[in-house]
């Protein structure tokens, strides 16, 4: 069971507490859709929200980062180094790329997928080993998620992004109803059922006890 210190976003006396969430991954994994659903749910729940990402030259296969900040009042759309509270990493290597944004107590959800960058598949560079262990040693709240497996259980590997959103959702002060409503409103009708299934499986997911 994941230790929950506090539910992020819950007003807890600290009045202007802004929660910072990073979605990182590889172009094509659905990172941007996941963060879009999240900000729509946060808006529904009454938070001030900002989201920032860059599109353009990052074509398919490029590194993608989407930053979401929410709280009573949010100014900067960008997260400061060392102030990221939660990172959802859709791909293992990508988690390493953005560690500057994290602090000791940051929550990391690490999808176990590996996607080889061109320099690795060409045999020029090496894909780092034991990423989970490396992360865990520095950030105790790191959890390995078998996202693709869960997505396949939901019925389609492509709902990986919503599965990971489901995993994240347990740690945010939003009720399940808001999430499901948002999914229903923002996704094309034919994809709603499988995504809701994926979301709920993610929400119930217990990370394996990996040492």
């Amino acid at each position, binding site marked *: 069971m994941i230790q929950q210190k506090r539910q992020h976003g819950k007003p807890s006396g600290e009045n202007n507490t802004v929660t910072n969430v990073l979605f990182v991954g*590889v172009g094509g994994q659905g990172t941007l859709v996941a963060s*879009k659903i999240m*900000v*729509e749910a946060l*808006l529904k729940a009454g938070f*001030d*929200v*900002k*989201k*920032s*990402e*860059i*599109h*353009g*030259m*990052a*074509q*398919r*296969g*490029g*590194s993608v980062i989407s930053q979401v900040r929410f709280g009573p009042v*949010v*100014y*900067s*759309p*960008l997260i*400061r*180094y*060392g*102030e990221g509270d939660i990172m959802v990493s859709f791909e293992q*290597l990508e988690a*390493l*790329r953005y*560690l*500057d944004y994290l602090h000791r107590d940051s929550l990391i959800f690490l999808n176990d997928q590996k996607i*080889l*960058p*061109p*320099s*690795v*598949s*060409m*045999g020029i*560079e*090496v*894909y*780092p080993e034991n990423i989970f262990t490396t992360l865990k040693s520095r950030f105790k709240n790191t959890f390995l998620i078998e996202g693709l497996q869960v997505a396949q259980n939901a019925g389609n590997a492509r709902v990986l992004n919503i599965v990971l959103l489901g995993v994240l959702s347990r740690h945010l002060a939003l009720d399940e109803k808001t999430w499901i409503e948002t999914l229903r409103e923002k996704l094309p009708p034919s994809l709603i059922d499988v995504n809701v299934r994926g979301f709920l499986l993610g929400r119930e997911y217990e990370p394996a006890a990996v040492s």
Partner: protein
Amino acid sequence: MKQMLSGNEAIARGAYEAGVTVSTGYPGTPSTEIMESLLQFKEIAVEWCPNEKVALEVGSGASLAGARALVVMKHVGVNVAADPLLTLPYIGVKGGLVLVTADDPNMYSSQNEQDNRHYARFAKVPMLEPSDSQEAKDFVKIAFSLSERFDTLTMLRTTTRISHSESIVRPGRIQKASTASGPLKNPQKHVMVPVNARDRHRQVEKRMRRLAAFAESFPANRIEWNKKDRGIITSGTCYQYAKEIFTDASFLKLGMVYPLPVKMIEYFARQVKNIYVIEELDPFLEEQIRSLGIKVLGKSLLPVCGEYNPDIIAEGIKDDSRPKAKRKGKKASIPDRPPNLCPGCPHRGIFYSLNKLKVFVTGDIGCYTLAYMPPLHSLDTCVCMGAGIGQAHGVEQAIKGDALGKVAAVIGDSTFFHSGITGLLNSAYNRGISTVIILDNRFTAMTGGQDHPGTGITMRGEQSHAIDYFQFCHALGVRTVRKVDPYNLEEVFMTIKEEVNRPEVSVIISEAPCILNRREYTPFPFRYEIAAAACTGCRRCLKLGCPAIGWKEIRSRDEKKGKKLKAGVAEIDPLLCIGCSMCSQVCNEAAITASSGKR
């Protein structure tokens, strides 16, 4: 109802609320989504123009006829539109005319980092700069009313961070679209011959003084008082970063970055002890404020280059009110994921052949610019849209006969219509010998697949006239125009070889739809696979730079004694391969074959 909108979506929404009926532009990151988002409003005539100059001229015509017109482009697009831009303020407007420039600090998808605030000063027009999506929407509406009130084109500047960030927007009242009553004759005001223009220039100067006076009481220029030992003058996204960092400072937040509210700045400066100007790119505000005799700190602490973020500002202006974030110094080497031509990209065959032929390739702006990287390594220049064709001609003029067989220009289809035509006309007219390769992938690929005169389909999806490249090039004076299938490497190689050696201008049209072009791309029937036993590890297929082809090292060197040991074999990722067959064409060992498994 409140909505999460990107800055670009908010600008489109603002145009709709302002009653805009005509909108024009040319696609370019980070501005593209403004026009695309306008498509949802059926009452607006939206169109992609061949280039930004045309877009602004169309907008000006619409304005003279009484419509409110929005013209949209990226920062470098304004360079193309600069000719009309610098004279339009002389003739003024009838319906409001707003030009959106989307700047790209950090050059996420651009060739330079120019600061288009200079254009406001250069063209003598007011410029607004929003700092989030709500302001982006509201400022568009304000820009239209300023445009009509002061009888001038008005600019709105965004940056990539504003355009592509989302924040909450409250929709506003929708103003009724003005009924365009048609243009009125007014030659003294509209016909810029010297005698009229001299008078109009005086009017422009008068108008700027009126605008400067207006800026003093413009509500979007505002002071937020707090402690007075630190005063910050800022605008745009930097305002948000600074508010995040300096929680107890006083702010002068500029919604209009040109002309400046001089009295307001002087008043602010008298009240606060130390003044910091926080602005990305050039010291545009800083230099003007210094010229008022006010001491400020800005670029001596903060960089001119690149995009800002809260950390850069906090580090530059030391005493941060929050504990400084520790950045972990040394980074383990993390392999990059650079942008790359997609697996099966039709450009690949052209650049593979150009590399083999060792010609100097004057290039252009588009996905194909990526061919400069190894292993294709076959694009030698990239300056601006259309530049490659002129450069190729310049090279041959410089080295004369030695250029034969050694120079070619490449240009995309959309880029050719944007600003390649005049270059080609020049080469043909001035008896050049260049070979111009038009990479026709049937839409504007780099910015997400917009239509253009070559596709014959309008932005609203209506059927129009598709240009005939053969007739068109012949009309420009090019006698030899040849079409190649870029997936047929032999044909590509031979055609380029013949044409670069032809002592006159010729055009090669490489025609195949981008693999992301849903309308025209037909999937290939098979994937390809490599028989590991047949692969000799020669790496020839890797020279294509296809993301689907990888290298597998063979570590144990003691196997199969007597046979020549190979260092490794190439492998095809079946999930990435789309079956273009180029790798199988370059393999000398017949190791790469169509896979039995259908796609």
